[in-house]
């Protein structure tokens, strides 16, 4: 049985529906992420799981018990807040032992358990420091140790890495994965950072306007977005408006505006005439001065319109003959000193395989 069952939960603030009939089932030991833009309802949902807010409709069941009306202090759920919310007047030791003292754990047990908790987050030796004497990453760890010390059923993390710089963020992501494996506590992670979500999660629920748009593993979310919103929100994506002109043997022929005829695999019941978009990741598009004729089924001539150099890869914007601009990503793996392969204005060919894109009906 699932550890957390969210059934048809709705929360309104006046006329605004923050969470709109969301149902989720999260298993024990899972690293689950709620991903979405700000205002999508992910934080409201998190606050309802923690008990700070109550649903207007639906139920939240933790470990088989309905949580409606149970205050946060009586739920076996802890939260790591975005601001960490460490108590500034307490040392690291006092902060971390706070949940134990609240649940009347005997004084003699505190020391060893605090040590153990600090060991989990590699903060031994920091016991006597105050939060304002710690770096951002260290505060983050104290918040984690404090929230995990009495092994809650669920740990909720509200954008916990948002305040850290890029390098530290990456390191903390790795540590979070390890920590979650070690302690075996179910993590529910809220973020608007899609890279973070893809890197950390077992499963992701992509939320928009209070609803779950897609619930899947990271690779499925990225590789096979279900609709325009998910395709656009997760990573870079070409969304080419098109309509299905013919379907045969699991192959679709799409008429893409300002581009031309494209073949794609995966008809699964799509009727010809259906309007939609072809979602095409930039890294799945090939680019060359001249592509080998049998390299890909879909090939178009064009020229480089502009490019964005980001170090490891360069994103080329290619304008094809009919006027459509397509983003193409190319790793900068050239030997030697040349930083990029093409200059704006260069005539190029772009192409992709039949199974490279996915058709998203409107």
């Amino acid at each position, binding site marked *: 049985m699932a550890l957390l069952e969210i059934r048809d939960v709705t929360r309104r603030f006046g006329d605004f529906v923050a969470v709109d009939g969301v149902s989720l089932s999260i298993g024990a030991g899972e690293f689950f992420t709620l991903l979405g833009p700000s205002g999508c309802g992910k934080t409201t949902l998190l606050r309802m799981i923690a008990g*700070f807010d109550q649903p207007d409709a639906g139920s939240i069941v933790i470990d088989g018990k309905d949580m409606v009306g149970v205050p*946060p202090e009586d739920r076996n759920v802890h939260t790591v*807040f975005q601001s960490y*919310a460490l*108590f*500034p*007047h307490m040392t690291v030791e006092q902060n971390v032992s*706070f*949940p134990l003292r*609240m649940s009347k754990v005997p004084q003699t047990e505190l020391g060893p358990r605090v040590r153990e908790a600090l060991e989990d987050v590699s903060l031994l030796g920091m016991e006597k420091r105050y939060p304002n004497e710690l770096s951002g990453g260290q505060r983050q760890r104290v918040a984690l140790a404090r929230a995990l010390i009495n092994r809650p059923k669920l740990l909720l993390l509200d954008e916990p890495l948002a305040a850290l710089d890029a390098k530290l963020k990456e390191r903390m992501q790795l540590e979070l994965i390890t920590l979650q494996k070690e302690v075996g506590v179910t993590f529910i992670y809220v973020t608007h950072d899609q890279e973070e979500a893809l890197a950390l999660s077992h499963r992701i629920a992509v939320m928009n306007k209070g609803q779950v748009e897609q619930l899947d593993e990271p690779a499925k979310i990225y590789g096979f977005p279900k609709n325009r919103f998910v395709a656009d929100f997760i990573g870079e994506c070409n969304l080419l408006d098109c309509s299905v002109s013919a379907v045969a043997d699991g192959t679709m022929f799409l008429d893409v505006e300002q581009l031309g005829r494209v073949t794609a695999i995966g008809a699964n019941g799509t009727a010809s005439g259906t309007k939609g978009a072809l979602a095409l990741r930039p890294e799945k598009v090939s680019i060359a001065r001249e592509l080998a004729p049998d390299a890909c089924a879909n090939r178009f001539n064009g020229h480089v319109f502009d490019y964005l150099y980001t170090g490891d890869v360069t994103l080329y914007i290619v304008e094809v003959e009919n006027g459509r601009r397509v983003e193409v990503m190319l790793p900068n793996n050239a030997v030697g000193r040349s930083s990029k392969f093409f200059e704006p204005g260069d005539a190029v060919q772009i192409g992709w395989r039949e199974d490279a894109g996915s058709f998203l009906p409107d």
Partner: protein
Amino acid sequence: MSPRAQKWLISGPPLGYLLVFFAIPTFIMVLASFRYVGELGGLAPLVGSGTPDELAGLTLESYQRFFEDTIYLELFLKSFLYATVTTLLCLAVAYPLALMIARSDKRWRELLVLLVILPFWSNFLIRVYAWMIILGPQSGFARAVNGVLGTFGAEPIPLLFSPIAVIIGLVYVHLPFMVLPLYVNLEKHDPALLDAAQDLGAKAWQRFWRVTFPLSLPGVYAGAALVFIPALGIFAIPDILGGTDGILIGNVIKQQFLDARDWPFGSVLSMVLTVLAIGFAGLAAWVARRQRL
């Protein structure tokens, strides 16, 4: 202009003000406490004219007098007690009030703070005289209190010209000085800390005693100093509300200067009061620093 000159330009005027109106008067008072009383009151000359039996120069006479008669130490003790009770009562009344204002809707906060300082807009003495009427034997308030006491079979008590009246007056006058620093402190508290405490299992009273109260201690110390120190030296309220037995050390100092015209002895009492006040302020600051607030 050099940064040094700028610094002096900014801090010079207030420093000059403090020098002229605090440091120099304090020095004059210290000196006065070692001088003789003049023939017609006030101070005897510092340098004598040489006539026999003339009192001039410096003496420890006034200090001797202070330590010989225990009545003055008793009065200091009594004033200390009144100031302590006033401070504690102010804290007890002001804390819930300040917390209520700090946690109320942002739109109302400024109005509520305004209401707290509203009494300052009318004259201090008028407000204290108003208490004379409220506490007077013919007032509805006094009759109601004594009516309640009567139903329990107790003798009626006079409210006015009693320690109760003095304490009521002291608490009433000093209350805003406790509310304001507490409010300023409580208003800054990050609400996420209370959420975190609740999330980690703290009940409402634990959240107050473990988080809100310790974090508000700087406000408590500031308010306590602002109430305790003036309450220690006040003379107007015991004068008006305290009756003949109600005098505090402030009244004696006033009497020495204005009625007895014994300036050296008045200065001695003032000195002791100032030293005590500085001592308490220093103690409060030391405690606050020790707790890393």
